């Protein structure tokens, strides 16, 4: 924390006390204007200061609360106990955070998000009940639009002049993706500027930049289309052809409309997310209460017990031929499933804080690398497990860093390739079934597959004779110690990151895939289970014991003769599976050696830490979704077992942790 930030914290703490005072007064006299004005102003000051000193999450929270009190000032809303208490609670949290005096902690505080969410919901309620056409605070999806601005100076000004107008144009360019052409007259003075700007800011806000220079220039502004027209080649080509002669606004508008229609049809192919339908389901008249995390964990724990019990009941009752019993168990199953789904949702919070953090990251990073980058987010209201959000922050920051450092080209390179100077990094989140999907994409240069492959061969990760599919080559970037950046920057380092990213995601039993097209960009798709206690796995049997292998690491399954596994006398401990040498860990060999072996064995190929290995089991019984329970303290040393689960017949299955299993076998 620098000295300015410290000063701010001290001042803000004083302000928070004043705010409390004002809020309490307001609560006592809801109609009084003096405390209302004080509350509003204090929040406004906190907002301004927080934004200025880099605590944007506090600024954002204060902004939303301020909007609420602005409604009160405008007579559109009444002061209620609810309003006062959400404000008090929110700023209590801010105070707690500020007292810690730890800048990173403040910036990472997910708790602020809960308060933000409450404030936003409150705002939504207020809007839906009594305010029509009030300025809506949109969250989640950013509304992009492309504008055409023709600025004709009425004073004598040169392009490199030190007039505020020149800097206002630069400020405007910073609002989004922009292309500005300057046309000069005979005297080398500016005849006019034509600016094409795609931004999330509304037109009134764009126009307001010119209020104080309206004597120095004339502004014509046209809303060309919604969406980013810089994504449309025709449009970019058209404006590019007008570097020396100004465009005809009417023709431009027509082209823009056509291009926009095209951009829309293009984007239809994107995977349909279910967020929109899900959002509609959310009750607008919801109220919120704060519950301790421990209570929720307890609840989830009991519900998972119930699920196990229910599975046992189904199993037991199937042996009893009774119509009534079947009906009851079926009904119970349905209710248990509902209960499970609802309870899982309780612990979920929207990932907005992450988005705020990333916005900041993109801004700072692009500045330090001299690149121009827009950050767009979609589905920021997608809900995730709170722990998951915390655990995923680092890996996602790493991916975004990679996007900006290795993906997005410098403005000059982009220009040369006919792309918009501003690169785009997009974060999209949505739910599918019991998974959260996060797609981070950029429109940069993409991954050079040849380079990756060459490097991998050089490092001996793959052999030159292997024929790899595109996906396999791209997956090599998750391999430890592989980096294709010829110049090592202090931003994303030397490729020590992506393997860690993959490892973290695997630990959370998620999946990560990467798609990339040369010159067009890269997208990383992360899929994470909504709940950390529900696991999808392969149920396998060794002797009389059942194990579960997490499905997210499984590559393939092969059945081989058991004799082929008896390697005690061989030097080479690898087994030939699917014409490939695989180092196989035999569960039977290690834990059940005394009983008679079956004739064949199933080898499950898994990729752990970028290395493919095999686990051999007697038989695979099927795929299943189950609730994972921790083992008791006595078993804490056996860390190759992640946990256990009770099967429908009441028996126990052990959930394996493949990476630790191999670690153990290596020692």
């Amino acid at each position: 924390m620098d000295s300015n930030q410290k000063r701010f914290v001290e001042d803000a703490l004083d302000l928070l006390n004043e705010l409390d005072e004002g809020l309490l007064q307001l609560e006592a006299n809801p109609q009084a204007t003096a405390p209302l004005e004080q509350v509003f102003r204090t929040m406004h000051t906190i907002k301004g200061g927080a934004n200025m000193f880099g605590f944007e999450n506090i600024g954002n929270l204060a902004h939303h609360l301020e909007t609420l009190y602005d409604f009160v000032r405008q007579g559109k809303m009444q002061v209620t106990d609810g309003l006062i208490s959400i404000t008090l609670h929110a700023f209590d949290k801010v105070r707690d955070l500020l007292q810690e005096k730890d800048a990173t902690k403040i910036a990472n505080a997910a708790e602020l998000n809960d308060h933000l969410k409450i404030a936003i919901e409150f705002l939504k309620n207020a809007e839906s009940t009594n305010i029509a056409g009030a300025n809506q605070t949109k969250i989640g999806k950013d509304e992009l639009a492309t504008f055409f601005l023709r600025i004709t100076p009425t004073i004598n000004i040169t392009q490199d002049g030190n007039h505020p107008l020149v800097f206002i144009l630069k400020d405007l360019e910073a609002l989004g993706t922009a292309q500005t052409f300057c046309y000069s007259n005979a005297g080398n003075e500016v005849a006019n500027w034509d600016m094409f700007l795609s931004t999330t800011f509304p037109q009134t806000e764009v126009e307001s930049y010119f209020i104080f220079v309206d004597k120095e220039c004339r502004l014509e502004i046209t809303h060309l289309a919604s969406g980013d027209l810089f994504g449309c080649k025709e449009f970019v080509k058209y404006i590019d052809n007008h570097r020396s002669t100004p465009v005809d606004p009417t023709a431009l508008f027509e082209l823009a409309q056509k291009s926009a229609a095209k951009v829309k049809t293009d984007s239809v192919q994107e995977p349909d997310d279910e967020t929109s339908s899900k959002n509609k389901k959310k009750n607008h008249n919801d109220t919120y209460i704060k519950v301790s995390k421990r209570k929720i964990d307890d609840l989830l724990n009991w519900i998972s017990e119930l699920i196990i019990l229910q599975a046992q009941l189904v199993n037991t009752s199937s042996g009893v031929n009774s119509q009534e019993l079947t009906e009851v168990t079926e009904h119970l199953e349905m209710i248990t499933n509902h209960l499970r789904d609802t309870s899982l949702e309780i612990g979920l919070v929207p990932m907005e804080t992450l988005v705020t953090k990333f916005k900041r990251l993109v801004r700072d990073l692009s500045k330090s690398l001299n690149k121009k980058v827009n950050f767009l987010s979609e589905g920021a209201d997608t809900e995730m497990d709170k722990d998951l959000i915390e655990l995923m922050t680092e890996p996602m920051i790493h991916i975004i860093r990679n996007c900006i450092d290795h993906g997005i080209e410098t403005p000059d390179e982009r220009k040369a390739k006919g792309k918009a100077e501003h690169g785009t990094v997009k974060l999209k989140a949505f739910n599918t079934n019991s998974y959260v999907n996060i797609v981070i994409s950029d429109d940069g240069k993409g991954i050079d597959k040849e380079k990756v492959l060459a490097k991998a061969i050089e490092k001996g990760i793959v052999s030159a004779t292997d024929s790899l599919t595109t996906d396999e080559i791209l997956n090599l970037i998750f391999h430890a110690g592989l980096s294709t950046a010829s110049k090592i920057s202090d931003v994303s380092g030397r490729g020590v990151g992506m393997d860690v990213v993959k490892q973290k995601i695997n630990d959370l039993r998620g999946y990560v895939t990467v798609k990339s097209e040369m010159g067009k960009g890269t997208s990383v798709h992360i899929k994470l289970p909504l709940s950390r206690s529900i696991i999808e796995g392969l149920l396998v049997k060794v002797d009389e014991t059942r194990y579960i292998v997490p499905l997210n690491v499984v590559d393939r399954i092969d059945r081989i003769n058991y004799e082929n596994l008896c390697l005690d006398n061989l030097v080479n401990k690898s087994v030939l599976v699917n014409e490939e040498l695989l180092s196989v860990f035999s569960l039977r060999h290690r834990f059940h050696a005394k009983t008679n072996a079956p004739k064949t064995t199933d080898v499950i190929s898994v990729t752990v830490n970028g290395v493919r290995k095999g686990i051999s089991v007697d038989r695979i019984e099927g795929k299943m979704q189950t609730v994972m329970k921790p083992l008791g303290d006595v078993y804490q040393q056996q860390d190759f077992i992640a946990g256990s689960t009770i099967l429908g017949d009441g028996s126990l299955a052990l959930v394996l942790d493949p990476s630790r299993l191999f670690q153990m076998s290596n020692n």
Partner: protein
Amino acid sequence: MKKTILVVDDFASIRDFVCETLQRKGYDTLGAANGTDAYQLLAQQPSVDLVLTDYNMPDCTGFELLKKIKSNPTVAKVPVIFLTTESNPEKMRSAKDAGLLAWIKKPYRSETFFAQIENALVNG
């Protein structure tokens, strides 16, 4: 001669920060915590070259300060700039009508900030 800028903000840390930034650029600065103080200070020292003020402040807002300055012939010529988080176009328009020279949005880019200030000092 060094130009003097009067910085008005009720939030001390912002006020000090802005003052320090300006001093590093070679300006003399004065600080005031609200519009009333600022106006008094200005009445005592009409040699101030520029007033840089926040919008939302207790007692006397930036807008009220602006109106006071512009209605007092001895100081009416001192240019006023708002430095604020407020971005309501209506408010911006009425402030302009009242004689405001420029509106800088917080957080600002230092390039723009100094260009606006220099411009105000030269042309204001």
